[in-house]
């Protein structure tokens, strides 16, 4: 049931990202809700859950983008894995860490996406433009992560309570 809820949430994030989000474009970028949601899940539910949802959400994004299936899934996967590394080694209670984690993951996600597009012969922006877009996207996504964490925490709360009761 929880998985269905998360799946519905991810589908909603993808649909909002490709329909409504471009209306709130700032400095040439709009929020990457799918990436923010995947990182919030990886932060709250663990790196493996994050990677699984990264693949599913990435494939949904690939359905809306030109080119083959896989580049968005691959880029999100790297973001989730990086978040896993981050949270293993740092204090998970600090709000600053997920904010920095999502900013770094956005940069990695973007670089992988540009690299994959370039490899597949799809259009890529010039390096200077790409750098500007990546910086703006990192700031935009970082600003959204606290809200995403609250939602992810609520989704994972029942499981966490059960685990505590069992112990």
């Amino acid at each position, binding site marked *: 049931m929880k998985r269905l809820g998360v799946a519905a949430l991810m589908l909603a994030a993808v649909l909002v990202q490709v329909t409504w989000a471009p209306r709130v474009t700032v400095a040439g970028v709009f929020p990457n809700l799918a990436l923010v949601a995947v990182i919030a899940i990886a932060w709250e539910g663990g790196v493996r859950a994050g990677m699984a949802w990264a693949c599913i959400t990435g494939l949904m994004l690939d359905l809306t983008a030109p080119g083959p299936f896989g580049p968005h899934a691959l880029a999100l996967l790297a973001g989730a*894995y990086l978040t896993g590394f981050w949270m293993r080694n740092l204090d998970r209670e600090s709000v600053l860490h997920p904010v920095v984690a999502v900013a770094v993951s956005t940069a990695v996600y973007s670089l992988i996406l540009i690299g994959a597009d370039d490899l597949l012969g799809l259009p890529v922006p010039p390096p200077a433009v790409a750098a500007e877009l990546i910086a703006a996207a990192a700031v935009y996504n970082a600003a959204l992560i606290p809200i995403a964490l609250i939602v992810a925490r609520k989704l994972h709360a029942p499981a966490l309570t059960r685990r505590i009761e069992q112990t």
Partner: protein
Amino acid sequence: MYRRSQSRSTGLFLILCAAMLLLAMLSQQTWAAPARGAAKSALAPLEGAMTQVAGNVDRVTSIFGDVSALRAENQRLKAADEALRRQVVELNAAAKENATLRQALDFQRSFGHRMVATQVVGRGPDGFSRTLQVDRGTADGVKPGMIVTTSAGLVGRVREAGPHGAIVQTLADPQSRVNVFLSKSGLQGTVTGGPTTLQLQVEHSLGLTASSGEWALTSGIGGGYPRGLVVGELASVTHRDTATSDEAVLAWVNDPASLSLVFVITDFTPS
């Protein structure tokens, strides 16, 4: 214990990466194109519904302060202004041709192309590829390579098409290239895409200079686009005596964020 968990995560990461790379390679093959197109069309109805919901939300929020009525009026005036401006531009450009050619060109522009009206149901998922998703596909005669336009001017080109949906590469896409001529000076140039503005490289010609306020129309050179479609207005020009071309910023006639209805020209085949 911690190390085992970390190595398991790394293993899973590598397996999933390999699976996604394999999927990308397989789905890029030409024999997989129909299946890929069909799969991409599957999400179009959901995107259409979501676009409608977003539109309704916009309408509800705009009720405050009677903004809705003002917006509708503004849109109507904007559309009328765009149509008038297009007419002025086309007439100015056509004045450069002789009477016979002008008649033929006007006729072709007004009636010569068959078009399919299609609704924009979604946009590209990231800021790097500027694309639109539309709700018409191969079942309606839309094919990859076809030109997409609005009443204001050129939008882009169909990149991929499924049975009931297609992905359009807009002029804002970094790899987009359009050959144009300027309405007053007649100079030729190439428009390239960018995230916020379109860039135009104007070729030098003896005694002629490009100036702000001129309109750029497709030249038809290269056979990629039909001649005479409005692309945009020159916002600023940087003259460089030492170079063989001038740099200019072009204000695109279409705002990709607010496009809702576009037309696919179905009887023009790019060479």
